[in-house]
């Protein structure tokens, strides 16, 4: 039967009506195709799942699905399938054995149940099997409800099979290897397993390979060679001189009994060349005999490795042997505080594997232990780099996630604990706070490392809601906001990381955030998410840490503000950037939950306070009189502008510093940019910005009080140039107009009128515009311009009123009436102003038109007044 035949049969079966016989045939066909040797694991799993839908009562489907998951390292998922298999087939020893092996790969409570299962299988104890499965169910339930991986289980280790029990023919190997994996194997269990193995040896050579393998592993696990020779004889292997398994066991014994290191190397080389032994086994036997736990001096141990022929030394497993020997001696040197030797040994391992994380960590610890300023930055940088590089290389942010989290937590905790033991910001004493702020290096470590700790903690959640930091009832809007916040956090936390792989890791993290976003939006996935409850306690703890972070940052900002030193501005910017990048929704929820924030206050108070503190410091920097310090202050204020791009104050302060630095054009642009920012600007800031524009422009006119005609022309030339550079400066415009009007014989009247008229459109305030209008109205040469302006004001005001009235006609609601009344109220002062201009300029027609228009507006006001009443 071929895979093609099965595929064709599936196609034909799928075309038939889905009656029970057809469904059963489909289940069997999918199953056979899934377990075929040529089918890959992903397709096999999909086919088994399909088989399960066609026939949900086939235990073999779940057994094999579990087996595939088990092989892929998904032990918990495999256990779920094995549990279903034993539920449908309670007598399946295969399923129990697989279940036991999966349990042995997990934590202590699972391992205990796995041992119980193996013991029950060996003893043929059906009740024991049922008891073990019931314990597994109870453990799973505890883990589900308590969120505790240990499930609150009794952590006392259990031995499994009772003493004196035998071993079963189908499980003796698994039981033996489980015993050998223990630190203290039970001798009676090993004997029972080997008895079962020996009993299976047949005259045809059956069972020899398994028995010899078991004996070889006994030696590898430290059993005395003499005892194993006895076992070898008992199994009759000593007579099977040609059997490869017997040859292997003989070779292992020869190595284990080698009298000297040189004898060992000589025998191992010969046996390897003869193909009697796998190299990995030789490497382990070498390590066990002459590794760091033995008596050889380090130099001799390393020299002994060099005694192997080069072609053997080039094998990967020999490289690992060398690394293990060097590392073992390095750790011994570390314990004995022989740090130079430890450093030398660990560094020797680097060419063997440049990317080994434990070596990088050990070297980093060494640099810290010896307080080596030379080694410390590179060693810790390399450690962080490797932790991110491995994840980036594997394309999975979960790789080494716990290590990264712990690294960043350790650094961030220590940098803070140096000055404050308590995580509560209010508990730090002022002198300690001052000292921490003075230790900029420690503070920067805390600022940087906590963000990375937080990022890795979020990525460590399985529930998408907890990845994003959302409550179970989060709205779509909240999901989107937290997605954006975490994406921003990813960028900010990793932007400055100089490590190889940091960018790739950031992309992976962003992809995880996006995935969590999609999953969190799906109500079905959210309802089925078992991790929401499991991870809730951890998520709450992290939210509290986030809240503490926000409060600490605020405390630091307040201290810097109180300190009043402009030189602290760069540090303040760094703190503010961290603060402003925190997920506000999440901080707010945590703050309300812990009673720090008021539920009814809309704005994020802590953000506002942070911004104000930073603005205050920037203001002090701008007011600093010291010319020498100005470049540094300017750079700091520029950082402030980048940190608070939505606020006008930093732009105002930068504008001021730029002006004092002789960079008027940039100062002018900053002030104008600030005025154009969306959102309201407080009056004093607006006033200062307008004043800044004028100051910058007036700087271009050195002497504005000419004594004679020659000086007057100099001023006019300078004012023209200033107006070209800074056309929004009202004061320069007025200065130029005044100077032009001072020319003898009215020679400058026409140009002055043009200068004033051109200023109306770009004027920054209504007051400026009114002043220009008044000046123009008093100039006879400006009559045409005044007429245009009056007509313009009249037309604009009446058009606004007409629009509002049309709207009212179309939709006579109270709101429309209110809008119409407002339009009238707004038009009246504009028309009065126009009327005044027309009167001053003696424009008779316009005066008549404006009077009529004002009379009409008065009637409308009266009507609206009545209507309202």
């Amino acid at each position, binding site marked *: *039967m*071929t895979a093609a*035949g099965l595929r*064709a*049969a599936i196609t*034909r*079966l799928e075309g038939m009506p889905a009656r029970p016989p057809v469904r*059963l*045939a489909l289940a*069997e*066909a999918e199953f056979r195709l899934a*377990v075929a*040797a040529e089918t890959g694991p992903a397709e096999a799993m999909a086919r088994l799942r399909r088989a399960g839908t066609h026939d949900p009562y086939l235990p*073999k489907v779940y057994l*094999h699905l579990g*087996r595939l998951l*088990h*092989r892929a390292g998904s032990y918990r998922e495999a256990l779920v399938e094995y549990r279903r298999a034993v539920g449908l087939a309670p007598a399946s020893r295969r399923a129990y054995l*697989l279940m036991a*092996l999966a349990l*042995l790969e997990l934590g202590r409570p699972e391992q205990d149940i796995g041992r119980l299962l193996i013991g029950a299988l060996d003893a043929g104890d059906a009740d024991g099997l049922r008891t073990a499965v019931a314990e597994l169910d109870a453990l799973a339930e505890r883990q589900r409800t308590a969120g505790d991986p240990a499930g609150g289980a009794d952590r006392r280790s259990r031995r499994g099979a009772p003493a004196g029990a035998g071993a079963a023919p189908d499980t003796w190997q*698994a039981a033996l*290897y489980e015993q050998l*994996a*223990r*630190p203290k194997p039970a001798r009676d269990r090993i004997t029972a397993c080997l008895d079962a193995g020996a009993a299976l040896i047949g005259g045809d*050579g059956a069972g020899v*390979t*398994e028995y010899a*393998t078991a004996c*070889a*592993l006994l030696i*590898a696990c430290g059993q005395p060679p003499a005892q194993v020779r006895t076992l070898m004889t008992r199994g009759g292997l000593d007579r099977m001189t040609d059997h490869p*398994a017997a040859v*292997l066991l003989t070779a292992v014994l020869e190595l284990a009994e080698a009298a000297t290191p040189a004898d060992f190397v000589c025998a191992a080389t010969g046996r390897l060349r003869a193909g009697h*032994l796998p190299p*990995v*086994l030789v490497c382990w036997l070498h390590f066990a005999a002459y*590794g760091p736990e033995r008596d050889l001096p380090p130099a001799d141990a390393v020299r002994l490795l060099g005694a192997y022929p080069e072609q053997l030394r080039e094998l990967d497993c020999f490289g690992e*042997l060398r*690394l*293990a020997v060097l590392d*073992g001696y390095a*750790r011994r040197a570390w314990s004995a505080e022989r740090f130079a030797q430890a450093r030398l040994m660990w560094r020797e391992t680097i060419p063997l594997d440049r990317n080994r994380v*434990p070596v990088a*960590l050990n070297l980093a610890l060494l640099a*810290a*232990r010896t*307080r080596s*300023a030379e080694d*410390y930055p590179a060693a810790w940088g390399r450690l962080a780099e490797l932790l991110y590089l491995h994840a980036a290389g594997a394309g999975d942010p979960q790789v080494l996630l716990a*290590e990264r989290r*712990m690294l960043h*937590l*350790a*650094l961030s*905790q*220590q940098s803070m604990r140096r000055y404050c033991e308590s995580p509560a910001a209010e508990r730090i004493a002022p002198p300690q706070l001052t000292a921490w702020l003075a230790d900029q*290096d420690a503070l*920067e470590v805390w600022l940087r490392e906590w963000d990375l700790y937080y990022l890795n903690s979020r990525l460590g959640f399985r529930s998408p809601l907890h990845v994003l930091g959302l409550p179970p009832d989060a709205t779509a809007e909240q999901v989107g906001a937290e997605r954006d916040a975490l994406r921003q956090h990813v960028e900010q936390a990793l932007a400055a990381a100089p490590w190889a792989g940091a960018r790739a890791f950031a992309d992976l993290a962003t992809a995880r955030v996006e995935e969590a976003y999609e999953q969190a939006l799906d109500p079905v996935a959210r309802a089925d998410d078992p991790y929401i409850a499991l991870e809730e306690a951890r998520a709450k703890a992290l939210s509290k840490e986030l809240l503490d972070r926000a409060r600490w940052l605020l405390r630091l900002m307040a201290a810097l503000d109180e300190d009043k030193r402009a030189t602290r501005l760069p540090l303040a910017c760094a703190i503010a950037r961290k603060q402003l990048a925190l997920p506000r929704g999440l901080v707010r929820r945590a703050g309300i939950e812990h009673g720090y924030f008021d539920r009814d206050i809309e704005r994020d108070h802590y953000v506002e306070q942070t911004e104000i503190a930073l603005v205050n410091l920037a203001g002090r920097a701008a007011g600093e009189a010291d010319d020498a310090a100005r470049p540094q202050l300017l750079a700091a204020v520029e950082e402030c502008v980048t940190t608070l791009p939505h606020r006008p104050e930093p732009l105002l302060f930068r504008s001021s510093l730029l002006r004092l630095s002789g960079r008027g054009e940039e100062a002018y642009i900053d002030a104008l940019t600030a005025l154009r920012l969306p959102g309201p600007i407080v009056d004093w800031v607006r006033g200062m910005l307008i004043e800044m524009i004028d100051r910058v422009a007036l700087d271009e006119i050195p002497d504005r009080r000419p004594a004679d005609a020659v000086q007057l022309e100099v001023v006019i030339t300078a004012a023209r140039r200033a107006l070209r550079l800074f056309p929004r400066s009202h004061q320069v415009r007025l200065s130029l107009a005044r100077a032009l009007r001072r020319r003898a014989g009215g020679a400058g009247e026409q140009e002055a009128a043009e200068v004033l008229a051109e200023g109306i459109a770009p004027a920054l305030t209504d007051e400026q515009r009114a002043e220009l209008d008044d000046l123009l109205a008093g100039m006879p040469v400006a009559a045409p311009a005044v007429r245009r302006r009056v007509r313009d004001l009249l037309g604009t005001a009446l058009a606004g009123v007409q629009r509002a009235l049309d709207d009212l006609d179309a939709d006579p609601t109270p709101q429309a009436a209110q809008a119409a009344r407002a339009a009238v109220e707004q038009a009246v002062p504009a028309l009065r102003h126009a009327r005044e201009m027309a009167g001053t300029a003696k424009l008779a027609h316009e005066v008549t038109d404006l009077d009529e228009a004002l009379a009409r507006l008065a009637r409308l006001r009266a009507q609206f007044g009545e209507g309202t009443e």
Partner: protein
Amino acid sequence: MFMVDIGTDSYYAVLGIPPDATQAEIRKAHSRIGTELNLRQRNEPENRAEVVERRKYINGIVAELARPAKRAEYDRANADLRFLTVRDAAAPLFADRGHRVDVLRQAITAHLEAAGVPARPVSDLDRTDFRDDETPNALLDQLLRERPQ
């Protein structure tokens, strides 16, 4: 320059055990240090007060680590200690007993299989041939017979 403190005065470092030490390891360390202090007390009567103080300190540490809640509290407050510990950099074959048994068994099995003497699988995880698991199905087998092999 800011440098981490790798916890040379932590409870674990004082006892000379790793931060994930079991209670048995803690008891063993306590006993070892107690013996050392007894010896010192005998040999250095002039330092008796210092030795007594040290014993009190050690007993206090052990008492705290012996109580799971107290130990958890200490560990939480000093989470860095668990990370800031020298690691075994060797491959799992050399560092982990359970892994070693697996790796060596697989290596021996592969070696003997290549030599023409394959071992019986320990479990289904080692098998690739599952034809025995197929169940006869009249309809499916009929369809498979109809198709030329």
